[in-house]
């Protein structure tokens, strides 16, 4: 069973000619089939955790370990991590002009699966996945994220999640900027992947709203660069009622 283990992770970032520590010792274990919600106020380091796991060059790991099935994730390049089974659905997916969605998806699936998917079954697979996410087929011929609305970008991220079938999915504020309908469609996509039981999910969010659609097994409150409290789904209800104030007194980082 695939397991992502994060131990005492410390991460810094360079900003304004100064080195700033954002993650200050994160411990977390996510097993295949489990869903962990990471909640916390702005600036608590949630997104830094997501991007550090994916290997974004902006972040420097200064301590700790991350392993996926015992393999050292921190030693891997960004593309190696993806091929090892890590997937990051981004909060702000970037535009890639000149590259069509269909070409991008096929190139990505070829890289992750280790061989080019058979054309006939692939076309069908993509078409059906797009239908489930209420995406217009014309979407496939547009350039990656170019001119996409906020909701289209998030659907496109979840489309990739469904097609790439990772072992560990990190969803970075996938709910932000979505109206209720889009949130429902996107959540259903995530749930389809979860129901296979083959993915561990790290759901990073600021709001409890998405947890009505995606039921977490565990909820962690992130504050000041580490996990301040962990519990079951009931912890989300407490946050809904009381907010993050109890966790931010110590002074959140930017």
């Amino acid at each position, binding site marked *: 069973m695939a397991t992502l283990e994060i131990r005492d992770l410390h991460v810094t970032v360079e900003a304004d000619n100064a080195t700033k520590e954002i993650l200050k010792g994160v411990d977390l274990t996510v097993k295949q089939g489990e869903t962990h919600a990471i909640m916390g106020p702005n600036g608590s380091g949630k997104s830094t955790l997501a991007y550090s796991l994916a290997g974004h060059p902006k972040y420097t790991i200064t301590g700790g370990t991350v392993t996926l099935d015992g393999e050292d994730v921190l030693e891997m390049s*960004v593309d190696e991590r993806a091929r090892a089974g890590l997937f990051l659905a981004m909060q702000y997916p*970037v*535009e890639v*002009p*000149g*590259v069509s969605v269909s070409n*991008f998806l096929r190139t990505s699936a070829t890289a992750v699966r280790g061989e080019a998917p058979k054309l006939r079954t692939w076309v069908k697979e993509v078409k059906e996945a797009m239908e489930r996410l209420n995406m217009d087929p014309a979407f496939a011929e547009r350039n990656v994220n170019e001119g996409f609305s906020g909701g289209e970008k998030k659907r496109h991220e979840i489309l990739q999640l469904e097609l790439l079938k990772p072992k560990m999915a990190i969803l970075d504020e996938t709910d932000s900027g979505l109206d209720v309908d889009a949130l429902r469609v996107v959540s259903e996509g995530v749930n389809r992947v979860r129901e296979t039981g083959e993915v561990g999910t790290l759901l990073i969010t600021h709001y409890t709203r998405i947890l009505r659609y995606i039921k977490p097994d565990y909820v962690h409150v992130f504050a000041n660069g580490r996990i301040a409290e962990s519990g079951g789904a009931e912890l989300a209800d407490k946050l809904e009622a009381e907010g993050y104030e109890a966790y931010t007194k110590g002074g959140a980082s930017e």
Partner: protein
Amino acid sequence: MAEAQNIPVGSTTAGQIAVAAESTVATRMSAPASFDVADFPVPHGREEEWRFTPLERLRGLHDGTAVATGDGVKVDVDAPEGVVVETVGRDDARIGRAGTPVDRVAAQAYSAFEKAGVITVPKETVLTEPIRIAVHGEGGTRFGHQVIELGAFAEAVVVIDHTGDAVLAANVDYVLGDGAKLTVVSVQDWDDKAVHVGQHNALIGRDATFKSFVVTFGGDLVRLHPRVAYAGPGGEAELFGLYFTDAGQHQEHRLLVDHNVPHCKSNVVYKGALQGDDAHAVWIGDVLIEAAAEGTDTYEMNRNLVLTDGARVDSVPNLEIETGEIVGAGHASATGRFDDEQLFYLMARGIPELDARRLVVHGFFAELVQQIGVADIEERLLGKIAQELEASVA
């Protein structure tokens, strides 16, 4: 790439639409067009038409010190049956009909060449295979002139392929008879040290169609002047260009479309990718719509993709309109960057760095490459792009 977004540091994208009685394209040149090199002062680098060009790398083509070596640059023509291939003296009346040199190097080439090549496709002859002109440098210096003439309703594809190492100043005249269709692919696939300067004039007959692909990859310095004028109404010009400018290379394309007669069309699309320190691409796109040219339909576009730091693009579209009785006129220029965030996004989907770069650059050039229609050139071009990207990633 959004319009004029992400302009890399050190690059310019400027444009203007002038509605003027006096053409600023004409007045900003340092001398009127002429076949005689003596009519042009030696440029010092501050002239409008020379300000982007590193004169010290022209190997004397601009100041009279470059001397033809006699051999060292080979020109071979391979033409299908029905085509007339000749080498003629300077006094042949067919030379220089498509246009007059507009700068000193073009005039130098015209004043210095000894023999000119003339290729004629007789009227109503429709070729199924391309005419191939191979210009191969073996370290020599050459002044050249080539005329390609299509009779009425003739159809041909011409590939001019520049390879090797040379210092070359050469002009090309394309003369299209009424209703003729000419596609020209000029490939500048030079070795690293080559210098190539030339003016390519097309004179488009009534209802004739001219399609040009200028593909520039190699050379230390390449500076080309593709120019179009119309001999009668109903002419169409499509000017496409691709360039891949590497570290240290200077690649300059200066286009002019002169809508001098009514009811003609022009469409200009040039796309360039740049990588490496001191890679410098220059694109000048001048379109004139003269007072007589009612019913003109024109559009010009330049797109640049900067792949690394240290590269520079200067892109200057310029449209001058002397009549409002036109179908359409527009221009666009944008320089975008392939940045770390795009690379991260693609790599985060499992795509290795080299494949990610190739995906982006192929995507960027694809719409133009697919239109060339000469399979071996298309393949070579994509192969070349892959090769240059590999070199940069390694």
